[in-house]
């Protein structure tokens, strides 16, 4: 291949390159600029530039793979990149004031957020197991540090430690799966793996199946599927709340992006085999997430279990095994991002100097003193439960519809039962806010950026709930059947 072709290839990764440059510039700016709000503004501006770049690539270039079929640009990757961009922008908006209160307002924070997002984007675009591994590690290593950013607080240290050890363990398992798949098929390219499985006629081979299990287990760690969810509640509780919001959406979306791509593109012919693992995983995940959350008194921990349960619902779209099913998972992730970051934004508002505001008791009677914040929390909790007219209902409805269409009606029934169970702990927050008397006065920490983030998330949750066709058309055109 000549130089000119490589230059064409480089245009295709412009958004990722932009983000990496912005992250490096932020590291240097941190040395001279003392005001962290400037760094946050630069971070958001850089992300918007990259978002514009992705939009341009989407409009002007047909789906294609570059760098010798290692990096692919298609509607699927673009849709997930949109989730990552919105995720990082909303996270920066909710974290400005919060990180000052936690006395962890470092310039590296924004830089690491951008590096993690770049890793996720590389994962979404990976068409080769090597690139997938590198993107995954870039994301994971940045998030380990972010989880432990409040380094004076033991909770945060412990969260980072647990996240690191289990994350490193899961990436070793991923590598073993990659090496088995490579040894059996002779390639790491996803499309060539599919072709090799066909021509060598080894789809029934137990060794290939074992490699596939290793890969699914590793992705299961990243998206927190039970029984690989053990790290999630501890890490979500100990990490800074803004990072919890970031982690519960970004790495999960990236994990589902690669899971969908690897299973559909490389192991598309082995759907019977991977469904035999994924179906029990989905049922256990929904059960563990919904049932253990009932016993939680810390809201961050409760939202962690809720995010495990949601991973179970999202998995149903992949189990459906059709492109429409995959589209329903992507749609769910987009909706989940708005409602989850919104809920965490309210949790952040309760945090102030000398007051954690993470216990459910702290929400008692919040509606009397702060009606607007309570109303927003009500919207997010309804949406997480899946009650119309909020977006959460649309997300669940679409996933259940696709899984029924593929003939797994019993899975949809199980999922509905667990989402009824989950209503208990979501609506308990609402009950505490509206039907209990306040124990002590809670003052909310507000800031303009946090209000912007809350406005965006609340409006999106309502708009997507009432007029879902816009998002549904977008996701259907991105992931054509």
């Amino acid at each position, binding site marked *: 291949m000549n130089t000119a072709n490589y230059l064409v290839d480089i245009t295709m990764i412009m958004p990722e390159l932009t983000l990496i440059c912005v992250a490096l510039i932020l590291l240097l700016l941190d040395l001279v600029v003392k005001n962290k709000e400037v760094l946050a503004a630069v971070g958001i501006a850089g992300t918007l530039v990259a978002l514009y770049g992705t939009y341009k690539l989407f409009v002007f270039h047909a789906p294609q793979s570059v760098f010798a079929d290692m990096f692919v640009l298609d509607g699927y990757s673009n849709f997930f990149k949109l989730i990552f961009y919105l995720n990082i922008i909303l996270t920066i908006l909710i974290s400005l004031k919060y990180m000052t209160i936690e006395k962890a307002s470092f310039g590296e924070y924004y830089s690491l957020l951008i590096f993690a997002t770049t890793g996720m984007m590389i994962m979404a675009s990976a068409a080769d197991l090597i690139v997938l591994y590198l993107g995954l590690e870039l994301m994971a290593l940045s998030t380990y540090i972010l989880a432990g950013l409040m380094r004076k607080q*033991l909770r945060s240290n412990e969260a980072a*430690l647990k996240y690191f050890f289990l994350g*490193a363990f899961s990436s070793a398992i991923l590598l073993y799966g*990659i090496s088995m798949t490579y040894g059996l098929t002779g390639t790491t390219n996803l499309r060539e793996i599919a072709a090799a499985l066909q021509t060598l006629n080894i789809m029934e081979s137990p060794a290939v199946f074992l490699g596939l299990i290793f890969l699914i287990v590793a992705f299961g760690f990243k998206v927190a599927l039970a029984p690989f969810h053990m790290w999630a509640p501890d890490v979500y509780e100990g990490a800074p709340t803004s990072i919890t919001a970031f982690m519960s959406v970004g790495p999960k979306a990236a994990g589902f992006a690669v899971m969908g791509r690897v299973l559909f593109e490389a192991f598309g012919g082995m759907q019977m085999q991977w469904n035999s693992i994924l179906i029990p995983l989905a049922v256990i995940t929904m059960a563990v997430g919904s049932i253990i959350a009932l*016993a939680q008194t810390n809201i961050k921990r409760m939202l962690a279990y809720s995010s495990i349960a949601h991973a179970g619902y999202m998995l149903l779209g992949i189990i459906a095994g059709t492109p429409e099913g995959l589209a329903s998972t992507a749609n769910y992730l987009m909706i989940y991002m708005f409602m989850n970051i919104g809920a965490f934004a309210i949790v952040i508002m309760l945090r102030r100097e000398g007051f954690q505001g993470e216990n459910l008791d702290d929400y008692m009677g919040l509606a009397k003193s702060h009606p607007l914040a309570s109303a927003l929390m009500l919207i997010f909790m309804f949406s997480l439960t899946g009650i119309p007219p909020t977006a959460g209902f649309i997300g669940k409805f679409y996933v259940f519809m696709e899984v029924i269409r593929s003939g797994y009606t019993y899975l949809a029934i199980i999922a509905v039962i667990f989402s009824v169970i989950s209503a208990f702990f979501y609506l308990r927050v609402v009950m505490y806010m509206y039907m209990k008397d306040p124990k002590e006065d809670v003052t909310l920490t507000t800031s303009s950026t946090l209000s912007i983030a809350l406005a965006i998330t609340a409006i999106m949750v309502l708009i997507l709930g009432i007029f879902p066709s816009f998002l549904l058309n977008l996701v259907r055109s991105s992931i054509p059947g």
Partner: protein
Amino acid sequence: MVPLSWYIVLSALMFSIGVFGFLSRRNLIIIFISIELMLNSVNISLVAFSHYLQSMRGQILVFFVITVAAAEAAIGLAILIAFYRNNPTIKVDEINLLKG
């Protein structure tokens, strides 16, 4: 010439020892070493496959794995030291602030 299966068995054994060490040992440093053992067992199998398949991809991936493992060690030890400053222990059983 050493047959491929010997390398694969060696790699599988090393990986199993690593997993066993990760799950059973109670010292953070030993757990860390177990993870490195798992990564290096993967490297052995990748290089062996790469040689027998006459394809370079496996060896390229090994270079990436080694590099990432170095970065991972740096970050892991940094997190460990940050933790140790607040709570001087490396016994897993004593790291139990977050639970429930």
